[in-house]
Protein backbone atom coordinates (compact mmCIF):
# COMPACT_ATOMS: atom_id res chain seq x y z
CA UNK A 1 0.00 0.00 0.00
CA UNK A 2 2.85 2.32 0.82
CA UNK A 3 4.25 1.33 -2.59
CA UNK A 4 1.03 2.31 -4.35
CA UNK A 5 0.88 5.67 -2.65
CA UNK A 6 4.58 6.30 -3.33
CA UNK A 7 4.01 5.50 -6.99
CA UNK A 8 1.40 8.25 -7.14
CA UNK A 9 3.52 10.53 -4.98
CA UNK A 10 6.33 10.34 -7.53
CA UNK A 11 4.12 10.70 -10.59
CA UNK A 12 2.19 13.63 -9.20
CA UNK A 13 4.86 15.12 -6.96
CA UNK A 14 7.63 15.41 -9.57
CA UNK A 15 5.58 17.49 -12.05
CA UNK A 16 4.38 19.72 -9.20
CA UNK A 17 7.96 20.12 -7.98
CA UNK A 18 9.01 20.96 -11.54
CA UNK A 19 6.37 23.67 -11.87
CA UNK A 20 7.29 25.14 -8.50
CA UNK A 21 11.00 25.08 -9.33
CA UNK A 22 10.96 26.39 -12.88
CA UNK A 23 7.86 28.47 -13.40
CA UNK A 24 6.73 31.68 -11.88
CA UNK A 25 3.01 32.21 -11.65
CA UNK A 26 0.71 33.99 -9.22
CA UNK A 27 -0.07 31.97 -6.13
CA UNK A 28 3.00 29.77 -6.56
CA UNK A 29 4.17 30.12 -2.97
CA UNK A 30 0.59 29.68 -1.71
CA UNK A 31 0.41 26.34 -3.55
CA UNK A 32 3.75 25.36 -2.07
CA UNK A 33 2.42 26.12 1.42
CA UNK A 34 -0.85 24.21 0.93
CA UNK A 35 1.09 21.23 -0.44
CA UNK A 36 3.51 21.34 2.47
CA UNK A 37 0.94 21.75 5.26
CA UNK A 38 0.39 17.99 5.78
CA UNK A 39 4.06 17.80 6.71
CA UNK A 40 3.62 20.00 9.77
CA UNK A 41 -0.06 19.62 10.67
CA UNK A 42 -1.01 16.86 13.11
CA UNK A 43 -2.03 13.88 10.95
CA UNK A 44 -5.46 13.94 12.59
CA UNK A 45 -6.00 17.43 11.15
CA UNK A 46 -4.97 16.21 7.70
CA UNK A 47 -7.32 13.27 8.16
CA UNK A 48 -10.11 15.63 9.16
CA UNK A 49 -9.63 17.67 5.98
CA UNK A 50 -9.64 14.48 3.94
CA UNK A 51 -12.96 13.47 5.48
CA UNK A 52 -14.36 16.90 4.63
CA UNK A 53 -13.30 16.44 1.01
CA UNK A 54 -13.70 12.70 0.42
CA UNK A 55 -16.26 11.64 3.06
CA UNK A 56 -19.68 10.48 1.99
CA UNK A 57 -20.99 14.04 2.50
CA UNK A 58 -17.71 15.61 1.45
CA UNK A 59 -17.03 18.10 -1.34
CA UNK A 60 -15.91 15.40 -3.77
CA UNK A 61 -16.99 12.26 -1.94
CA UNK A 62 -20.65 13.31 -2.15
CA UNK A 63 -20.67 13.17 -5.95
CA UNK A 64 -18.57 10.05 -5.98
CA UNK A 65 -21.21 8.36 -3.82
CA UNK A 66 -24.11 9.76 -5.85
CA UNK A 67 -22.76 8.54 -9.16
CA UNK A 68 -21.18 5.27 -8.21
CA UNK A 69 -22.77 4.33 -4.89
CA UNK A 70 -19.27 3.88 -3.58
CA UNK A 71 -17.50 5.70 -0.81
CA UNK A 72 -13.80 5.78 -0.17
CA UNK A 73 -14.09 5.95 3.62
CA UNK A 74 -12.93 2.86 5.52
CA UNK A 75 -11.52 1.17 2.44
CA UNK A 76 -8.07 0.16 1.39
CA UNK A 77 -8.07 3.15 -0.97
CA UNK A 78 -8.60 5.53 1.92
CA UNK A 79 -5.48 4.21 3.63
CA UNK A 80 -3.51 4.71 0.40
CA UNK A 81 -4.95 8.20 -0.06
CA UNK A 82 -4.02 9.19 3.49
CA UNK A 83 -0.45 7.95 2.98
CA UNK A 84 -0.29 9.77 -0.34
CA UNK A 85 -1.33 13.10 1.13
CA UNK A 86 1.11 13.02 4.02
CA UNK A 87 4.00 11.70 1.89
CA UNK A 88 3.55 14.10 -1.04
CA UNK A 89 5.12 17.14 0.70
CA UNK A 90 8.42 15.32 1.17
CA UNK A 91 8.59 14.55 -2.54
CA UNK A 92 7.68 18.12 -3.48
CA UNK A 93 10.17 19.68 -1.06
CA UNK A 94 13.07 17.44 -2.01
CA UNK A 95 12.15 17.55 -5.69
CA UNK A 96 11.84 21.32 -5.85
CA UNK A 97 15.24 21.77 -4.18
CA UNK A 98 16.85 19.24 -6.53
CA UNK A 99 15.31 20.78 -9.65
CA UNK A 100 16.17 24.33 -8.60
CA UNK A 101 19.81 23.36 -8.19
CA UNK A 102 20.11 22.33 -11.85
CA UNK A 103 22.34 24.89 -13.60
CA UNK A 104 20.19 27.36 -15.53
CA UNK A 105 22.82 27.53 -18.29
CA UNK A 106 22.47 23.81 -19.01
CA UNK A 107 18.76 24.31 -19.56
CA UNK A 108 19.39 27.36 -21.75
CA UNK A 109 22.01 25.42 -23.72
CA UNK A 110 19.42 22.75 -24.42
CA UNK A 111 16.92 25.39 -25.60
CA UNK A 112 19.44 26.99 -27.97
CA UNK A 113 20.24 23.52 -29.35
CA UNK A 114 16.62 23.22 -30.43
CA UNK A 115 15.02 21.20 -27.63
CA UNK A 116 11.55 22.11 -26.39
CA UNK A 117 10.87 22.57 -22.71
CA UNK A 118 9.43 19.05 -22.34
CA UNK A 119 12.37 17.47 -24.19
CA UNK A 120 14.76 19.50 -22.06
CA UNK A 121 13.00 18.42 -18.87
CA UNK A 122 13.20 14.75 -19.84
CA UNK A 123 16.76 14.77 -21.20
CA UNK A 124 18.51 17.37 -19.08
CA UNK A 125 16.67 18.70 -16.04
CA UNK A 126 15.21 15.49 -14.60
CA UNK A 127 18.32 13.34 -15.21
CA UNK A 128 20.48 15.96 -13.50
CA UNK A 129 18.10 16.13 -10.54
CA UNK A 130 17.80 12.34 -10.47
CA UNK A 131 19.50 11.77 -7.14
CA UNK A 132 17.51 14.39 -5.29
CA UNK A 133 14.31 13.07 -6.81
CA UNK A 134 15.20 9.49 -5.80
CA UNK A 135 15.96 10.65 -2.28
CA UNK A 136 12.58 12.40 -2.19
CA UNK A 137 10.87 9.23 -3.40
CA UNK A 138 12.55 7.07 -0.77
CA UNK A 139 11.70 9.53 2.02
CA UNK A 140 8.09 9.61 0.81
CA UNK A 141 7.95 5.84 0.87
CA UNK A 142 9.28 5.74 4.42
CA UNK A 143 6.74 8.35 5.46
CA UNK A 144 3.89 6.50 3.72
CA UNK A 145 4.94 3.34 5.51
CA UNK A 146 4.76 5.04 8.88
CA UNK A 147 1.50 6.91 8.34
CA UNK A 148 -0.88 6.54 11.28
CA UNK A 149 -3.12 9.45 12.21
CA UNK A 150 -4.68 10.40 8.90
CA UNK A 151 -5.16 6.73 8.03
CA UNK A 152 -6.99 6.10 11.28
CA UNK A 153 -9.28 9.07 10.63
CA UNK A 154 -10.10 8.24 7.02
CA UNK A 155 -9.77 4.46 6.78
CA UNK A 156 -10.37 3.33 10.33
CA UNK A 157 -8.66 0.25 11.66
CA UNK A 158 -10.31 -2.77 10.13
CA UNK A 159 -8.21 -5.93 10.51
CA UNK A 160 -7.22 -7.45 7.16
CA UNK A 161 -8.64 -4.50 5.24
CA UNK A 162 -7.28 -1.14 6.33
CA UNK A 163 -4.95 -2.30 9.05
CA UNK A 164 -1.52 -0.91 8.21
CA UNK A 165 1.55 -1.79 10.25
CA UNK A 166 1.40 1.28 12.49
CA UNK A 167 -2.28 0.63 13.13
CA UNK A 168 -1.55 -3.01 13.89
CA UNK A 169 1.01 -1.95 16.48
CA UNK A 170 -1.60 0.28 18.10
CA UNK A 171 -4.11 -2.57 18.28
CA UNK A 172 -1.59 -5.14 19.48
CA UNK A 173 -0.24 -2.87 22.19
CA UNK A 174 -3.78 -1.93 23.18
CA UNK A 175 -4.77 -5.57 23.60
CA UNK A 176 -1.62 -6.37 25.56
CA UNK A 177 -0.02 -8.57 22.93
CA UNK A 178 3.46 -7.21 23.50
CA UNK A 179 5.31 -10.02 21.81
CA UNK A 180 3.62 -9.51 18.46
CA UNK A 181 3.75 -5.72 18.82
CA UNK A 182 7.49 -5.69 19.40
CA UNK A 183 8.17 -7.84 16.34
CA UNK A 184 6.14 -5.50 14.11
CA UNK A 185 7.87 -2.52 15.75
CA UNK A 186 11.22 -4.14 15.03
CA UNK A 187 10.38 -4.73 11.37
CA UNK A 188 9.06 -1.20 10.91
CA UNK A 189 12.09 0.38 12.59
CA UNK A 190 14.47 -1.66 10.47
CA UNK A 191 12.65 -0.76 7.26
CA UNK A 192 12.62 2.94 8.16
CA UNK A 193 16.36 2.84 8.90
CA UNK A 194 17.06 1.15 5.56
CA UNK A 195 15.09 3.76 3.68
CA UNK A 196 16.80 6.62 5.46
CA UNK A 197 20.14 5.05 4.57
CA UNK A 198 19.08 4.84 0.91
CA UNK A 199 17.83 8.43 0.92
CA UNK A 200 21.16 9.64 2.32
CA UNK A 201 23.13 7.65 -0.19
CA UNK A 202 21.20 8.96 -3.17
CA UNK A 203 21.20 12.57 -2.08
CA UNK A 204 24.93 12.68 -1.30
CA UNK A 205 26.30 11.34 -4.54
CA UNK A 206 25.91 14.26 -6.89
CA UNK A 207 28.14 14.37 -9.98
Amino acid at each position, binding site marked *: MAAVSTFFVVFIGVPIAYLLARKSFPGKEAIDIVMTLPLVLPPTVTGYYLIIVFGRNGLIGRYLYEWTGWGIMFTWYAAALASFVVALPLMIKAGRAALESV*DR*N*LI*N*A*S*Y*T*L*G*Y*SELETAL*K*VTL*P*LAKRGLLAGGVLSFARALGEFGATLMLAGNIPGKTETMPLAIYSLAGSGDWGAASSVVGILTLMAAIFLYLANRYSKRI*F
Partner: protein
Amino acid sequence: MGLKVTVKKAVKGFMLDVSWQIGNELAVLFGFSGSGKSLTLQLIAGLIKPDSGFIGANGSTYFDSANDIDAAPQQRSIGYVFQDLALFPHMTVRQNILFGAKGVPRQETAERYHEMVNAFYLNGIENKRPSEISGGQKQRVAFARALIRRPNVLLLDEPFSALDTPLRIEMRAFLKDLRKQFHMPIVLVTHDAGEAASLADSIIVYSEGSVIQKGSAGEVLDNPIDERVRRLLVGQPTSDPLPVNHSGQARRKSSAPGENRP
Protein backbone atom coordinates in the same frame (compact mmCIF):
# COMPACT_ATOMS: atom_id res chain seq x y z
CA MET B 1 23.66 39.10 -45.13
CA GLY B 2 24.95 38.94 -41.62
CA LEU B 3 23.46 39.75 -38.28
CA LYS B 4 21.41 42.82 -37.44
CA VAL B 5 20.65 43.76 -33.85
CA THR B 6 18.67 46.78 -32.67
CA VAL B 7 17.36 46.26 -29.16
CA LYS B 8 16.22 48.00 -26.02
CA LYS B 9 15.95 46.20 -22.75
CA ALA B 10 15.58 47.55 -19.22
CA VAL B 11 16.70 45.25 -16.42
CA LYS B 12 16.69 46.31 -12.77
CA GLY B 13 17.91 49.87 -13.18
CA PHE B 14 20.12 49.01 -16.15
CA MET B 15 19.19 50.10 -19.66
CA LEU B 16 20.56 48.37 -22.72
CA ASP B 17 20.02 50.35 -25.91
CA VAL B 18 22.21 49.19 -28.78
CA SER B 19 22.12 48.97 -32.54
CA TRP B 20 24.69 47.31 -34.77
CA GLN B 21 25.04 45.16 -37.82
CA ILE B 22 27.81 42.80 -38.91
CA GLY B 23 28.49 40.66 -41.97
CA ASN B 24 29.76 37.08 -42.02
CA GLU B 25 32.72 38.08 -39.93
CA LEU B 26 34.01 37.85 -36.40
CA ALA B 27 32.82 40.82 -34.38
CA VAL B 28 34.06 41.41 -30.88
CA LEU B 29 31.73 42.96 -28.32
CA PHE B 30 34.18 44.71 -26.12
CA GLY B 31 33.84 46.59 -22.85
CA PHE B 32 33.88 46.33 -19.08
CA SER B 33 31.88 43.70 -17.24
CA GLY B 34 28.34 44.85 -16.68
CA SER B 35 28.14 46.89 -19.87
CA GLY B 36 25.46 44.64 -21.38
CA LYS B 37 27.54 42.41 -23.67
CA SER B 38 26.35 39.07 -22.35
CA LEU B 39 22.81 40.38 -22.10
CA THR B 40 22.98 41.22 -25.81
CA LEU B 41 23.91 37.61 -26.60
CA GLN B 42 21.02 36.30 -24.51
CA LEU B 43 18.65 38.61 -26.36
CA ILE B 44 19.98 37.41 -29.73
CA ALA B 45 19.56 33.77 -28.67
CA GLY B 46 16.01 34.42 -27.44
CA LEU B 47 16.72 33.43 -23.86
CA ILE B 48 15.54 36.87 -22.75
CA LYS B 49 12.93 38.93 -24.56
CA PRO B 50 13.87 42.51 -25.56
CA ASP B 51 11.47 45.33 -24.70
CA SER B 52 11.55 46.45 -28.30
CA GLY B 53 13.67 46.28 -31.43
CA PHE B 54 14.71 43.95 -34.24
CA ILE B 55 16.99 40.92 -34.42
CA GLY B 56 17.61 39.08 -37.66
CA ALA B 57 20.29 36.96 -39.30
CA ASN B 58 20.86 35.99 -42.93
CA GLY B 59 17.30 36.67 -44.00
CA SER B 60 15.51 35.21 -40.96
CA THR B 61 13.78 37.52 -38.53
CA TYR B 62 14.13 36.32 -34.95
CA PHE B 63 12.56 39.24 -33.19
CA ASP B 64 10.65 42.24 -34.46
CA SER B 65 8.54 44.18 -32.01
CA ALA B 66 6.94 46.22 -34.82
CA ASN B 67 5.51 43.06 -36.40
CA ASP B 68 5.05 41.11 -33.19
CA ILE B 69 7.60 38.44 -34.11
CA ASP B 70 9.40 36.64 -31.30
CA ALA B 71 10.86 33.27 -32.33
CA ALA B 72 11.54 30.78 -29.53
CA PRO B 73 15.22 30.00 -28.89
CA GLN B 74 14.60 26.53 -30.34
CA GLN B 75 13.67 28.05 -33.71
CA ARG B 76 16.59 30.43 -34.06
CA SER B 77 19.40 28.14 -35.21
CA ILE B 78 22.02 29.85 -33.11
CA GLY B 79 25.19 28.23 -31.85
CA TYR B 80 25.86 29.49 -28.34
CA VAL B 81 29.05 28.76 -26.40
CA PHE B 82 28.40 29.74 -22.79
CA GLN B 83 30.93 31.28 -20.46
CA ASP B 84 30.93 28.15 -18.31
CA LEU B 85 30.53 26.04 -21.49
CA ALA B 86 27.40 24.33 -20.12
CA LEU B 87 28.44 20.82 -21.11
CA PHE B 88 25.96 18.24 -19.85
CA PRO B 89 27.73 16.44 -16.99
CA HIS B 90 25.59 13.32 -17.31
CA MET B 91 26.53 12.74 -20.95
CA THR B 92 29.75 11.62 -22.61
CA VAL B 93 31.62 13.81 -25.09
CA ARG B 94 29.96 11.90 -27.92
CA GLN B 95 26.49 12.32 -26.41
CA ASN B 96 27.10 16.01 -25.80
CA ILE B 97 28.08 16.63 -29.41
CA LEU B 98 25.26 14.51 -30.83
CA PHE B 99 22.82 16.36 -28.57
CA GLY B 100 23.59 19.36 -30.77
CA ALA B 101 22.68 17.47 -33.93
CA LYS B 102 18.93 17.81 -33.51
CA GLY B 103 17.29 18.34 -36.88
CA VAL B 104 20.29 17.02 -38.81
CA PRO B 105 19.10 14.29 -41.25
CA ARG B 106 19.82 10.86 -39.86
CA GLN B 107 22.06 9.77 -42.76
CA GLU B 108 24.19 12.86 -42.31
CA THR B 109 24.57 12.74 -38.54
CA ALA B 110 27.41 10.20 -38.42
CA GLU B 111 29.34 12.00 -41.12
CA ARG B 112 28.97 15.39 -39.45
CA TYR B 113 29.89 13.92 -36.11
CA HIS B 114 33.17 12.59 -37.48
CA GLU B 115 33.77 15.91 -39.19
CA MET B 116 33.42 17.64 -35.81
CA VAL B 117 35.57 15.13 -33.93
CA ASN B 118 38.34 15.61 -36.48
CA ALA B 119 38.01 19.39 -36.73
CA PHE B 120 38.12 19.76 -32.95
CA TYR B 121 40.75 17.08 -32.20
CA LEU B 122 38.46 15.03 -30.02
CA ASN B 123 39.60 11.57 -31.08
CA GLY B 124 40.12 9.26 -28.15
CA ILE B 125 38.07 11.13 -25.57
CA GLU B 126 34.66 10.55 -27.12
CA ASN B 127 33.48 8.21 -24.37
CA LYS B 128 34.65 10.36 -21.49
CA ARG B 129 32.46 12.58 -19.36
CA PRO B 130 33.15 16.34 -19.22
CA SER B 131 34.51 15.94 -15.68
CA GLU B 132 37.24 13.65 -17.02
CA ILE B 133 38.71 15.90 -19.73
CA SER B 134 40.91 19.02 -19.68
CA GLY B 135 39.77 22.63 -19.91
CA GLY B 136 40.89 23.00 -23.52
CA GLN B 137 39.12 19.79 -24.49
CA LYS B 138 35.94 21.00 -22.83
CA GLN B 139 36.15 24.19 -24.89
CA ARG B 140 36.44 22.22 -28.09
CA VAL B 141 33.53 19.94 -27.16
CA ALA B 142 31.40 23.02 -26.54
CA PHE B 143 32.32 24.41 -29.95
CA ALA B 144 31.62 21.07 -31.66
CA ARG B 145 28.23 20.80 -29.96
CA ALA B 146 27.32 24.34 -31.02
CA LEU B 147 28.46 23.89 -34.63
CA ILE B 148 27.38 20.38 -35.65
CA ARG B 149 23.98 21.75 -36.63
CA ARG B 150 25.60 24.43 -38.83
CA PRO B 151 23.79 27.31 -37.18
CA ASN B 152 23.15 30.69 -38.79
CA VAL B 153 25.05 32.58 -36.12
CA LEU B 154 27.69 31.67 -33.55
CA LEU B 155 27.67 33.45 -30.17
CA LEU B 156 30.67 33.14 -27.88
CA ASP B 157 30.31 34.46 -24.34
CA GLU B 158 33.85 34.85 -23.01
CA PRO B 159 34.56 31.21 -23.81
CA PHE B 160 38.24 31.46 -22.89
CA SER B 161 37.95 33.33 -19.62
CA ALA B 162 38.46 30.24 -17.48
CA LEU B 163 41.67 29.19 -19.25
CA ASP B 164 45.24 30.03 -18.27
CA THR B 165 47.27 32.14 -20.68
CA PRO B 166 49.11 29.52 -22.83
CA LEU B 167 45.90 27.61 -23.44
CA ARG B 168 44.06 30.83 -24.12
CA ILE B 169 46.53 31.76 -26.86
CA GLU B 170 46.19 28.28 -28.32
CA MET B 171 42.41 28.64 -28.33
CA ARG B 172 42.69 32.01 -30.07
CA ALA B 173 44.62 30.42 -32.92
CA PHE B 174 42.01 27.69 -32.99
CA LEU B 175 39.19 30.21 -33.24
CA LYS B 176 40.93 32.02 -36.10
CA ASP B 177 41.12 28.71 -37.89
CA LEU B 178 37.46 28.06 -37.19
CA ARG B 179 36.56 31.39 -38.66
CA LYS B 180 38.05 30.39 -42.01
CA GLN B 181 36.13 27.10 -42.03
CA PHE B 182 32.69 28.42 -41.13
CA HIS B 183 31.22 31.39 -42.92
CA MET B 184 28.76 32.91 -40.56
CA PRO B 185 28.46 35.91 -38.27
CA ILE B 186 30.44 35.17 -35.10
CA VAL B 187 29.96 37.41 -32.07
CA LEU B 188 32.63 37.12 -29.40
CA VAL B 189 32.13 38.79 -26.04
CA THR B 190 35.30 39.62 -24.18
CA HIS B 191 36.90 42.19 -21.93
CA ASP B 192 40.39 41.01 -22.82
CA ALA B 193 42.06 43.61 -25.04
CA GLY B 194 44.56 41.11 -26.48
CA GLU B 195 41.77 38.80 -27.50
CA ALA B 196 39.90 41.64 -29.20
CA ALA B 197 43.01 42.82 -31.05
CA SER B 198 44.10 39.40 -32.27
CA LEU B 199 40.74 37.98 -33.32
CA ALA B 200 38.38 40.72 -34.39
CA ASP B 201 37.37 41.67 -37.91
CA SER B 202 35.30 44.41 -36.38
CA ILE B 203 34.98 45.74 -32.86
CA ILE B 204 31.89 47.07 -31.12
CA VAL B 205 32.72 48.90 -27.91
CA TYR B 206 30.09 48.79 -25.15
CA SER B 207 29.82 51.05 -22.17
CA GLU B 208 26.95 51.04 -19.68
CA GLY B 209 24.39 49.64 -22.06
CA SER B 210 25.32 51.71 -25.12
CA VAL B 211 27.62 51.33 -28.08
CA ILE B 212 30.24 54.05 -27.81
CA GLN B 213 32.30 53.07 -30.83
CA LYS B 214 32.24 50.57 -33.64
CA GLY B 215 34.26 49.92 -36.74
CA SER B 216 36.75 47.57 -38.30
CA ALA B 217 39.35 46.25 -35.89
CA GLY B 218 42.01 48.51 -37.45
CA GLU B 219 39.90 51.64 -37.20
CA VAL B 220 38.97 51.15 -33.59
CA LEU B 221 42.43 50.09 -32.49
CA ASP B 222 44.14 52.98 -34.30
CA ASN B 223 41.63 55.68 -33.44
CA PRO B 224 39.93 55.03 -30.15
CA ILE B 225 37.11 57.52 -29.91
CA ASP B 226 38.07 58.80 -26.48
CA GLU B 227 40.36 58.23 -23.55
CA ARG B 228 38.15 55.55 -21.99
CA VAL B 229 38.14 53.40 -25.11
CA ARG B 230 41.87 53.91 -25.54
CA ARG B 231 42.53 52.76 -22.01
CA LEU B 232 40.24 49.78 -22.47
CA LEU B 233 42.00 48.75 -25.65
CA VAL B 234 45.54 49.00 -24.41
CA GLY B 235 44.38 46.73 -21.65
CA GLN B 236 45.12 48.96 -18.70
CA PRO B 237 42.78 48.02 -15.94
CA THR B 238 40.98 51.08 -14.73
CA SER B 239 38.84 51.38 -11.67
CA ASP B 240 37.42 54.77 -12.58
CA PRO B 241 33.69 54.72 -12.84
CA LEU B 242 32.70 55.52 -16.39
CA PRO B 243 30.91 58.82 -16.92
CA VAL B 244 27.37 58.35 -18.12
CA ASN B 245 27.31 61.10 -20.71
CA HIS B 246 28.82 60.13 -24.02
CA SER B 247 30.18 62.50 -26.61
CA GLY B 248 27.72 63.54 -29.29
CA GLN B 249 29.90 61.97 -31.90
CA ALA B 250 29.73 58.58 -30.25
CA ARG B 251 25.97 58.85 -30.01
CA ARG B 252 25.59 59.60 -33.70
CA LYS B 253 27.83 56.73 -34.61
CA SER B 254 25.94 54.28 -32.51
CA SER B 255 22.62 55.20 -34.07
CA ALA B 256 23.71 54.59 -37.63
CA PRO B 257 23.47 50.85 -38.21
CA GLY B 258 25.46 49.27 -40.97
CA GLU B 259 27.95 52.03 -41.53
CA ASN B 260 30.84 49.80 -40.60
CA ARG B 261 30.02 46.89 -42.85
CA PRO B 262 33.03 45.63 -44.73
